């Protein structure tokens, strides 16, 4: 039997780990809970500090991964049971149906067009709606519709069969059942990523109360050429181009207020804010962009250059101080940001069209369940705990189970990708390959 490795999570880290393994001839089962792979990176506009288009870099990797003869991608799937031990894990994966027979589907889109249900499109951060049967974005992998059972009228008891009738090839299969797949793998890589902090918790910034206060992921969709506005930075309240924009850093991060946020620095927010500020200034040179920060953490090669470009070349204003409050003018929906500039001690009020709250990176909620299934420990925050931060920094508390990317703490894309390769290496030594390695 071929030895194989289980990778949990189909974001950029999981994809890279899978590709590294598969390119060495090792069989990979990639388990992704969404109907499509790509993770958060697929939603992002550009990378920092190189300002490359995210999807343009990710898309070829997603396709290579999905088409790789050594990789089996299980979408809509979750790991439910892990027995055995390193070298011989016995894993059960539940694969939920997409209710579409992908071998029959011709991607004509008739089902999507005819579907009567519209729900907020989570891929477009809710700025657009999608149907109950949908493909989230044109470059989605796999490129085949999936029925979101929760919002579909057929499953809601309404007896709707509009998509089935619209489909010219009979590809809609409401009767598909979840199936349990049993896998034997020699090691497991966890790459389940992170969750964005919900800034509603910090009521003083008015997220969800004020239309023009948004999160970074919402911003990424607004400036993406493939987003709901075609890349125009329109503000949610009135669709006007936002020309005065502020970023508030450390929203939920570095918080020592009881019950609010997390005490750690999320590591990437200074850089994505600089990147987003540069994106705005490049597109709208006459706009005014302000970044409220505590410390500027530009801690990798070339990072400081991007900060310098934003501040010195593009004229982005950096104000040191964490604003106390945002208030909204109920008539214009403009925002007033109250702050103390801790460099000068002066109290100020900044009027802006749009405010972006640089929200913390949190461990995923479902880590608790997954950790139980895997039999591994989480740290005090809910990230996957590593056995020994020095000698075995990518090893969980259970032998043969490894981590990479944001599931064990915030990190950037570049670091996640390095770790993915490193975790793939650790997982390989677990596959008992020998000098004359058969490798598959």
């Amino acid at each position, binding site marked *: 039997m071929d030895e194989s490795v289980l990778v949990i999570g189909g974001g950029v880290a999981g994809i890279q780990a899978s590709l*590294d393994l598969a*390119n*060495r001839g090792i069989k990979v089962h990639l388990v992704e809970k969404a109907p499509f792979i790509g993770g958060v990176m697929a939603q992002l506009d550009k*990378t920092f500090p190189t300002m*490359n288009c995210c999807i343009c*870099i990710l*898309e*070829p990797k997603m*396709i*290579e991964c999905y088409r790789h003869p050594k990789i089996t991608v299980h979408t809509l799937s979750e790991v439910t049971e892990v027995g055995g031990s390193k070298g011989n894990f016995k894993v059960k994966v539940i694969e939920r149906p997409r209710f579409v027979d992908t071998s029959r589907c011709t*991607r004509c889109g008739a089902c999507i067009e005819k579907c009567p249900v519209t729900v907020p499109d989570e891929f477009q951060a809710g700025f657009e709606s999608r149907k109950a049967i949908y493909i989230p974005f*044109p*470059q*989605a*992998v*796999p*490129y085949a519709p999936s029925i979101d059972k929760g919002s579909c009228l057929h499953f809601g008891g309404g007896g709707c069969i509009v998509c089935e009738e619209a489909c010219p090839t009979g590809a809609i299969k409401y009767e598909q059942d979840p199936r349990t797949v049993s896998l034997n793998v020699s090691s497991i890589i966890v790459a389940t990523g992170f969750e964005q902090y919900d800034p509603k918790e910090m009521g003083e910034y008015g997220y969800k109360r004020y239309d023009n206060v948004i999160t970074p992921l919402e911003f990424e969709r607004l400036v993406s*050429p*493939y987003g709901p506005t*075609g*890349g125009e930075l329109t503000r949610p309240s009135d669709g006007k181009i936002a020309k005065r924009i502020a970023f508030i850093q450390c929203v939920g991060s570095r918080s020592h207020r009881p019950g609010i946020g997390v005490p*750690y*620095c*999320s590591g990437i927010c200074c850089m994505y804010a600089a990147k987003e500020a540069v994106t705005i200034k490049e597109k709208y040179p006459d706009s005014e962009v302000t970044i409220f920060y505590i*410390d500027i953490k*530009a*801690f*990798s*090669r070339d*990072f*400081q250059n991007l900060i*310098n470009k934003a501040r010195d070349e593009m004229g982005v204003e950096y104000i040191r101080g964490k604003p106390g409050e945002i208030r909204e003018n109920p008539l214009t929906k403009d925002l007033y940001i109250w702050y103390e500039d*801790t*460099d*000068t001690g002066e109290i100020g009020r900044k009027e802006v069209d749009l405010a972006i709250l640089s929200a913390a990176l949190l461990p995923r909620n479902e880590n608790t369940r997954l950790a139980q299934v895997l039999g591994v420990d989480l740290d005090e*925050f809910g990230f996957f705990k590593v056995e*020994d*931060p*020095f*000698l075995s*920094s*990518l090893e969980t508390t259970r032998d043969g189970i490894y981590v990479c990317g944001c599931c064990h*703490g*915030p*990190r950037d*894309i*570049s670091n996640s*990708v*390095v*770790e*993915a*390769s*490193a975790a793939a*290496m*650790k997982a*390989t*030594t677990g596959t008992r390959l020998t*000098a004359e*390695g058969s490798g*598959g």
Partner: protein
Amino acid sequence: MNMSAESSSPRVGVFVCRCGVDIGDVIDVPALVEYAKKVQGVAYATEDSFACSTSGLEKIEDAIKRHNLERLVVAACTPRTHEAIFQSACERSGLNKYLVEMANIREQCSWVHRDDSQAATEKAKDLVRMAVAKARLLQPWKEPEIKVNPNILVVGGGVSGLSSALSLADLGFKIYLVEKEAELGGMLKSLHKLSPTMRDSSESLESMLRLVEQNPNIEIHTSSRVKSVEGAISNFEVEIESDGKVVERFNVGRIIVAIGAEILKPHGLYGYGHDKRIIIQLDLEEKLKNNDLKGVGTVVMIQCAGSRNDERPYCSRICCNTALKNAQILRELSPDIDVYIIYKDLITYGVESSALELNTKRRGVKLIRYRDESPPEVAIEDGSVVVKVFSPTINEEMTFRADLVVLSTPLVPRGEASELARMLKLPQDPFGFFKEAHQLSPLDFATEGVYVCGTARAPKDAVESISEGLGVGSKAAEYKFSRIRGRGAAFAEINEKKCSGCGICIELCPYNAIRKDEIGISRTDSALCGGCGVCAASCPERAITIHHFTDDQLEAQLLAAIDRRPRK
């Protein structure tokens, strides 16, 4: 090399990508498609919203079969990121992968001519016409299979080198580990304790060194350096010297550079070098190791000493954590030691280093911020070291009498980095750190089969260096299991009848791929050739052909550039 029966006028298919709005909103795509249909040789032309998407690729694959297309032109983005997936689309529909040509109508057209749709559309027509002209002359190519020597050279015996050597040796690779010092261990030998474990550096290192020393697949060469490297990925010839003498020659298939970095000794800065009470963090580590802190009551640490300035704008990533860690250790040693850290921005990031920051503050270490425009001043007054700094937080100048001033200086590339860069043809950044090929492939480098990990690439801590060592291990191991590798279609071939033996190409070739044969004629080793074309461009006899970029192909492309008629 003829792979299949070739018609004299192959049927070209043109696929124009809208890239959503990125191309489609600037260039008149339907007009471009209509134009393409009229270009000589084009049998089929169409457009798609995203040619690179799964559905786009399926349409291309389908069209190749349905319209018997023999050559492909994809007018889209850059071949750098996307050529491979269009090549795979060709392969999946039975067309040789080297029969596709890309016309970059995004980065080189729609993005830069956003404000002039009409001109951008005309330029896109030119680019497509040129690509078609070249595509018609493309030849199929089957990559030769070249056996890769399974042995691996690791240069540098610090933690990044050790971790890659160990992981690869575990997989059965024979490793030559070359270290210039008499002992393995690198920077960690000089350190006291490591965060976040706060274990002795030597203890952490020992466990790794034991594994390396016991591993029969690792051949260790200490007090040695790489004298020369010839050849390419499949087979590098390496010479190792010790005490100025060549001590060994061996062949390897891949090379991992893990030479680390140095800590800057900032002579003259803040009085460093003038007074032995003004030291750098590395000296403090030494003092902590030797318990040599008698009589020290006040320690002032100054961050960004020699970094984040005009000369070295980069942040060295590890210095804030190092200062916090050492400050914490000092406070644990004795509560009578007062420690002040004077910083610009506190670079703690992620879970572990944020915890270090918090613990250090809880132990009573005082952090004082300074601004770029008012850095601290260090002076000797009446025999005491006095540090003055303006604190924007309290809007006052503060004065400290320090028993020790500890400068947190950045990691800088090692002197030998440039020599290795030349030997291995690795690009460096302006400061001398080795540069990767692309951000999303941080472990791939310009020279195939050569990898860099650890602080030789950029400042990072020990944990990150170990991960990176493993990461390049993963990349280097790729060739193990194929044992053979393919090479692209671009390579140089020398016409022996035309070659005059002048040798210009030999001197210019950056891949050392050209040698003289016994009668003085230049010969290329196609396994080594990188296909860069320098030789062909400089050959006075025009004796050199670069396959996939032949004179005929480029000439056709150029003629198409100046002749705007579609010629059909």
